[in-house]
Each structure stands twice: as C-alpha cells, then as structure tokens.
C-alpha cells in the first residue's frame, strides 16, 4: 500500500510496483489499487486469498524489471545482498528452532526473539542502504520490526505463521526480492 506512494506514480512505475509486489510477496501482497485494470489486461488474477501473476503478467513483470535493472548499480546491490546472506541462514535456523518449542516455553521464545532483534538491527543497515538503489527495500525493516514487536507482545504467530505478516514471511519476501532483482536462481545459489 505504501509502495505506490514512494515516488511519483507514472503509469509504468505503478504497474511495475504492483506486479513486483505480487511477484515477490505472493499471496501476502496487498491487492493493488489498480487491480481491476491489471486483471482487465490479463496480467493478474484476483482470488479470494490474494493475487497471482498470470503467464502474461510474469512476462510483463520480467520486461519491466529488466528495464529497471538497466538503471541500477547491480554490483553494489549484489555486495549488499552478500551481507544479507551472511545472516540469512542464522535467521532461518532461529525460525526452525522457534517451531520446535512448545507453548509453555516462554524462556526459549524470549531468547529467540531477542536474537532476531539483534539480527534485525544489523540487517536493517543493509536493507536501508539497498534502498538508496531500490527504494522499495526501505519497507522491509519496519515490516520486520512490526512483526517482531507483535511477537514480543505475545502474539507468537507473528514469528513464523504463513497466514499473517510474520517475521519469516517478510524475510522470505525480502530474500526473494534480492534474488529476483539480481537475477539469481535459488538452485545456483544453493539457498532455499
């Protein structure tokens, strides 16, 4: 929802932002304001659980992304992505550890949440700097912090549940954004 407001909305930009949000966010992406228009063009379909790109939508997204990539210092973004990767596995391990705890293990949850807070503090610097190249990355730190704040308030599902804007969901989306933007496949990178 904030994405479209980040800069002047020209037709091209808002189309890209909408398609890209769906591409990297999957069903968690907000239904864009121009959803009807995009659906009318056959680029997305809107279902009760969220939006998805059609095959045409995927092609269109790839074209627009390619155009955007031409204007971005990809080497700089790749170097920043390396710093993201430096904490990626630790983060996923914390998420897996979290799922092994039973509901009454408050101590363990406290430890994991504070560990993730520290990781977030660190990786926020990376994401914020990435945003100097790609403004949409500025949205990730506050979304991750929002999820972690809810966890600290005892809303445990905000750590790993796939059904809410959980820490793990946003993290996975940010990772996907780096991969898609840099044109790296998970297979070749070996991170899943």
């Amino acid at each position, binding site marked *: 929802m904030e994405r479209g407001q980040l800069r002047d909305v020209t037709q091209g930009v808002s189309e890209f932002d909408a398609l890209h949000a769906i591409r990297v966010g*999957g069903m968690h992406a907000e239904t864009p304001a121009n959803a009807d228009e995009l659906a009318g063009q056959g680029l997305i379909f809107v279902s009760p*659980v969220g939006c*998805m790109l059609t095959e045409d939508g995927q092609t269109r997204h790839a074209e627009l992304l390619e155009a955007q990539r031409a204007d971005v210092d990809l080497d700089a973004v790749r170097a920043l992505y390396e710093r993201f990767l430096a904490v990626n596995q630790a983060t*996923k391990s914390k998420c897996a550890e979290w799922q*092994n705890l039973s509901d009454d293990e408050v*101590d363990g949850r406290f430890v994991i949440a504070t560990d993730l807070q520290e990781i977030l503090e*660190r990786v926020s610097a990376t994401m914020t700097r990435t945003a100097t190249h790609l403004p949409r990355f500025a949205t990730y730190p506050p979304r991750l912090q929002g999820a972690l704040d809810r966890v600290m308030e005892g809303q445990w599902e905000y750590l*790993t549940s796939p059904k809410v804007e959980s820490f793990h969901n946003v993290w996975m989306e940010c990772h*996907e954004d780096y991969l898609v933007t840099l044109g790296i496949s998970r297979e070749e990178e*070996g991170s899943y």
Partner: protein
Amino acid sequence: MSAPSTLPDVVSFGAAGDPDPARLGGKGASLVKMVGLGLPVPPGFILSTDVGRGYLRDGGLREAVLADTERELRGLEHALDRRLGDPDAPLLVSVRSGAPVSMPGMMDTILNVGLNDAVVEGLARDTGDDEFAWGSYERLLDSFATTVRGISAGVVEEALLDAPTTGLPPGDAARERTKALLALIREEGGGEFPQEPRAQVEECVNAVFGSWNSPRAKAYRKFRGVDDSIGTACVVQSMVFGNRHGAAPSGSGVAFSRDPSTGAPGSYGEILYDAQGEDVVSGVRDAEPLDALSARLPELGRQLEEVMVSLEREARDLIEVEFTIELGKLWVLQTRVAQRGGRAAVRIAVDMVDEGLIAEADAAERVTDEQLEAARAPRFASAADEADVLARGLASSPGGAVGEAAFDAARAQAMADDGRKVVLVRPTTSPTDVQGFIASVAVVTGRGGRTSHAAVVARGMGRPAVCGIGDVTVIDGGRAARIGDVEMREGTQIAVDGDRGIVARTAPPLADAQDDTYVTRLNQWKATAQT
C-alpha cells in the same frame, strides 16, 4: 545463597570435581560432566560463580583470580603445545558466560580470542587458507565490538558495509573488514583492540561477568523472578576448528540421540563440512544427514554414536550435542536435553520406559497434553513398499497425506478450488508458492532441508513435508515435472510421508490413533498418575 566454598575459584574441566551448576554454571557443569564420562572435550577451565559474584562486589577481578587464570592458561598451552600469541602455533580460546539457569541478555560467547594482527598472518600461512584465517579474525573483532565494547550491531554493520570489498576474493574481503572493525573499535569502542592475547582474555572475562547486570539480563530476571545474587560463571575453552582445511576432513554438526521429530531410535543429525562450531545450524548452504558421515568416515560415525549413547544414558532423556571434526578428530562441544515434536515426545518416553531408563510415572510427567494431542495427527503406520517409493528426502514436517501432484501454486489453487486434494511439488519454494501450500495437503521440494523456507512454512501450517528429494524440473508449462529421471504428470496420485521422508506411488495405511500403542500406553500412565 551458599557460603563461600573452599573449592578452587578457577579450575580446569578435569579437576573441577562435582559438576555443580550453582558453582560452575550450567555450561561449565555440563562440560565437567562430559569430561568425567571420558568424552573428547576441547580442554578448558571455569571461573566459578564465586568469582562472578566477587567481580560484581569489587568492580573487578582480584589479583589471586588473575594469577589462577594465568596458571590455567599456561596449563592449556602446555597440554596443547600451543601458545597464546605465537603465530606459528597459536592457542585460541572461546570465552562464554554460564549461569546456573538460562539467562538471556547476558553476553553469550566470544570465539577466536587470541588472534591478533600477527597471529592471523601465521594462521593464514599455516593453513594456506586466507579466508579461514581472516574470517576467524573478523568474527572475533565483530563480537568484541558488539558484546565487549557495546557498539550496536547496526553501527558495526554500517562500518562493514563501508569497507572497500567490492570485487575482492573472500580472504581479502575479510581482511578489509577486519581493518574496518579495528578502526571502529578504536574510534567508537573506547580504545584500541588489545593485541596482547592475555589482555583480550581478561577483557572478555570482565565483559562476561559485567553482563550479568546488563539491562536486558536484569529485565529478564525481574520478569522471571530469578534471584539477582546467584551470579554467573565463565568458561574459557580452547578452540577447535571445523573449518580448518587439510589432509583429513573438518566439519561441524548437531546430533540427537534419537530422531527429534518421530522419536525413532538411533542417532539423527546433520553435519556441515568446513564450517565452524557456532555455524552448526547457522552456517551457509545445506547440511548433510548424519548417515552420510558414517558412510564417509565410519570410525568417526561409530565414535559419535558411542558419545550419544553414553550421554543419553547419563541424562535419561533425548539429548542433543554440538560437535566438531578438526582434521579428522572428533570433539564434543556442548550437550543439552533436546526439544522434540509431540509424536517424538510420546514415543521416546514409552521407549525409555521399555529400555528401563525411566519409570512410567516419569514418562507420564514428561509428556505434555499438547504433545499428546500432536501425536494423534494422521500419519502412515509403516513405510511404503520399496517398489512404490518415488523419491526420498528429509522428513521436514511430520504427518502423512495423499493427493494429486501439482507443480505450480496457481494450478494447486485451481485444483483445490475444484475440491481436489493436492500435493504441491516444487524444485524450491518462494513466497509465490505459499498460496499453493495453503491449497495443498502436503508439500514436496527438490532442494532444502529442515530449515528451508518450505519446511518452516509447512510446519507452520501443519502440512506434512518432504524436502530435498533431488532434482525437480517443472516442464510442459507447469503440467508435469521430471523428478530424477521419472516424469510425472499433474494429477498423479502420490503419498507424502513427512515422518520418514518418503514420497510414494501408493499410500501405506494410516495409523489409527486408537491403535497407536505408544499413545495408548502413555494415556494409561497419565491416568494412573492422576489417581
């Protein structure tokens, strides 16, 4: 609290005697116990909780404690034939906190203490591995900056991002990052990083004891009602390197005495070659299952098995160990009672009663109602016939389910909308697949392990999952896939066994919770315990 003890304040693992957590801290006591069992533990020593309380009372370490610490450091140098600060044969240590109870918010661990500008060069020469040497130094400086000198992680990361590393090979990049960290510690961290290894040890030990009163630790004690006066111990231990390259293999791993997801007997775990201790699960890239270790290095596999058996017998519970292999030698770093899934909790408790390790009443008390409930979820009673097995992978989320194969999320959704039961099969998973997860009864992925996105999401939704089955290539516009050399069409009926890591053509019968003798027996014991 206890009266000041007459036991030594600073004591090596081997000489500590009674593994009393109140005196040695939880970590220290566990190490002492392991040494007592004759397990291969990297040598080290403990500064007791008495020392920790003394530090807080006096605002520093007493001369006698410093002298004892020096004595123990010399003992380590002698035992390992390595010396602090010697570039040709350096002794490196880790410094950890260890309170009698778990204490989030305290300084946890500093690794590679003893490295400095000269030793790192020697280490690079000795191992022929710049990345390892400079990476180790970077790691020390990074945690020294954050945990000892209190520079925030964000500020440290900013400094690292400013380091001119673009285009450099990994070893040189790490060298640039150490320069950035040294400058940061000097400018923002109250002065130079101590090049003298003994000064490093002392500052780290001080930081451990001081962190007992960190705002976070204080807040935690207040929250949990933990006595402020129990204090912490500090463990100084020689480092072993799972990332040391050489003629024999190195690696780090985690092992469980039984499968923590199903409870099946026999040790279970993962190993990551060329990775350091703390990387056990937080390293990069995929770990290999422990079976692969036994196949590759049978002697080490057997040794590790013995370690697991003796630790489990001692703990009379499912245990987990962190281990490192340094140039072909096995070291056990830590052990603790392991977390487990509901089904595993039930099976392990019942099996341990049958093995005479625990009493029925212990079993009844150990398994929570929540775990019993989870143990009743549908699963297959037995493994699929070998002839029916399509693929094997890691059992990543428990349970059993049958459905029609779909190879992309949109198709899975569409099929589910038609009222069909779907199994989503993907090479890897990305956020776009999550919708397909929700529409599916089970998930299969080509790549990734228990910590992969797919596994985390599947467990979060209670869907059975098998991850890491090998090459999966989606073909024919998403309507078919090649799995290994087998081609599978959309709509093919497949069975996913998330307890055994099997994908099969036909489903074995589902286990009936009523017939599950583990659950039934445990229920009886619980009923008896309540009367």
